[in-house]
């Protein structure tokens, strides 16, 4: 079997993404499901910037995803009914929090890093859960809707038109993913790979490893908070579950399932996971067991992920 060149994959993926709303119904899906794949795919790809390309395991990315969601929801509800402003505030909230927490944890490694990210993730969960008067507590931020996009010459109705919203999400996704791709190709991105492959050697070469890991963490959280804002807009709602630790676990499994060492892998993992979850939860009450079993099976039988398997087959 000959290896398919990377460029062909990229073109194929963009074609699929651009046409998705038009064939989603034909294969039993719906446009909102397509938007969901994009949003969670972006989140998983953001996590993979840190996990797959810097070699640092964060199990707490839901915190920044959720901060993005809350930032967007509360801005639109309390400050001004503007979708772009909501996204801006949400992303700023997530990124700022990541800067502070990243500074506390950039020195830690391995299991310890993972544990501390899990634990810190819970801080924001409890704030959202407890601070009833502002965040709505367990019920979440309700009573607001995503606003139409005013471009000056025209208004795009994001609320009533599912397809318009999908393409709005795709637009944000494309910007984020292109930025991510450029970053990974830059000298900075190459340095991150060097740290992943051999941290000690990187250190001997004079690379300030802690600073790079901090920056990689912040960049990764910046992207995941974009996904978070889009998630809130998608649901017209957000609640503390968006920032709880099980959400973080979902991002990690998506990245692993698709393939951590590939750029597009996490998107494919997210697509598989979202479709599966949608199917299982509409067919059985015991969906948690199925998802749990899915985690176990992925770890035991697909540790390299879908793209990792394909790639290995291509080599041999």
């Amino acid at each position, binding site marked *: 079997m000959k290896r398919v060149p990377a460029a062909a994959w990229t073109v194929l993926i963009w074609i699929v993404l651009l046409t998705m709303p038009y064939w989603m119904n034909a294969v039993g899906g719906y446009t909102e499901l397509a938007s969901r794949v994009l949003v969670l795919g972006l989140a998983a790809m953001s996590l993979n910037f840190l*996990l797959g390309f810097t070699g640092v*395991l964060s*199990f707490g990315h839901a915190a920044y995803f959720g901060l993005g969601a809350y930032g967007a929801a509360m801005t639109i509800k309390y400050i001004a009914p503007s979708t772009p402003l909501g996204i801006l505030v949400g992303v700023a909230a997530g990124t700022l929090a990541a800067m502070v927490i990243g500074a*506390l*944890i950039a*020195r*830690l*490694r*391995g*299991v*310890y890093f*993972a*544990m*501390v990210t*899990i*634990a*810190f993730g*819970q*801080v924001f969960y*409890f*704030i959202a*859960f*407890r*601070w009833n008067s502002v965040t709505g507590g367990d019920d979440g931020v309700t009573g607001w809707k995503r606003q139409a996009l005013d471009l000056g010459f025209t208004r795009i109705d994001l609320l009533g038109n599912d397809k318009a919203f999908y393409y709005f999400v795709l637009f944000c996704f494309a910007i984020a993913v292109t930025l991510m791709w450029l970053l990974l190709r830059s000298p900075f991105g190459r340095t991150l790979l060097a740290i992943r492959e051999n941290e000690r050697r990187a250190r001997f070469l004079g690379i300030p490893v802690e600073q790079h890991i901090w920056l990689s963490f912040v960049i990764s959280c910046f992207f995941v908070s974009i996904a978070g804002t889009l998630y809130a807009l998608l649901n017209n709602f957000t609640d503390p579950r968006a920032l709880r*630790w*099980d959400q973080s*676990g979902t991002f*990690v*499994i998506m990245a*692993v399932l698709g393939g951590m060492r590939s750029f597009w892998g996490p998107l494919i993992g997210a697509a598989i996971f979202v479709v599966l979850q949608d199917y299982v939860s509409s067919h059985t009450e*015991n969906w*948690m*067991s199925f*998802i*749990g*079993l*899915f*985690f*176990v099976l*992925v*770890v*035991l039988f697909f*540790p390299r992920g879908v793209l990792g398997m394909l790639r290995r087959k291509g080599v041999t």
Partner: protein
Amino acid sequence: MTQLLLFNVFNGLIVGAFYALMALGLSLILNLSGVINFAHGGFLALGAYIAYTLTPYVGFWGGLAIAPFATAAVGLVVERVLIRRVYGRDPLYSLLLTFGLAYIFEDVLRAIWGAQSVPYPIPPELATPLSSEFFFLTGYRLFMVGLAAAVVVGLFLILNRTRLGMRIRAGTADLETVSVLGVNVGMLRTLNFGMGIYLAGLAGVLAAGMLGLQPTIGTSLIMPSFVAIIVGGLGSLPGTLLGGLLLGVASGITTVYFPSATEAVIYVMMGLVLLVRPRGLLGEEGRVQ
């Protein structure tokens, strides 16, 4: 006010004892096998439900005696069949595996025993307050603290005075050498896992008597246990114990002055510890990496 404060400090101590029992089990497994056991909360809940089911037949004391061992037995099977497959691999995989197990546990418990909270009966001789002035000092609460303390002392005796404990400590320091010296490392890890799960099961039975019983009982205790390990210092069991008690008391005191921050305070403490002493209060130098 003093009474309220005392009440909450004592309450915090009890909660801290739960955290410590759970965190010690997590720590044992983490130190020897490098596995963060997300399913620990599930085991805790399982222990509580087993005791709940047994109590009508063997009484409270019988349940308390049998359930933790039964839980540990389930733990041994899970370790043999699943957990051991991820030893030596990236910690990512053990996290995901036990994460999936935690999901399955919660769902299965709910399917068997229902989602509603059920009361867990404790013997009447333990349920009455010891004095009217200190109404919160029921026999059960004192008993819980006493038993938790006894079990912790027992654990440290096992680790420091027995051959098994010596091997566990040696394995924590250098597993390869221990293996070369002829110790069956696979068996050592299994037994060590069983001990950790025993502590979870015991904490579950005790917690059920105080908090009531629902499938999510373990989930609410697992995060503070992680924090206890981080605050106490990775790799140090005395540190884990100290961390657990410290967090319990701190959240107890916070309840008096600033109730809505009861959960958040432990994360603030974690942030402070990481800022000042990244390896934790009693953590050894070099284990951070």
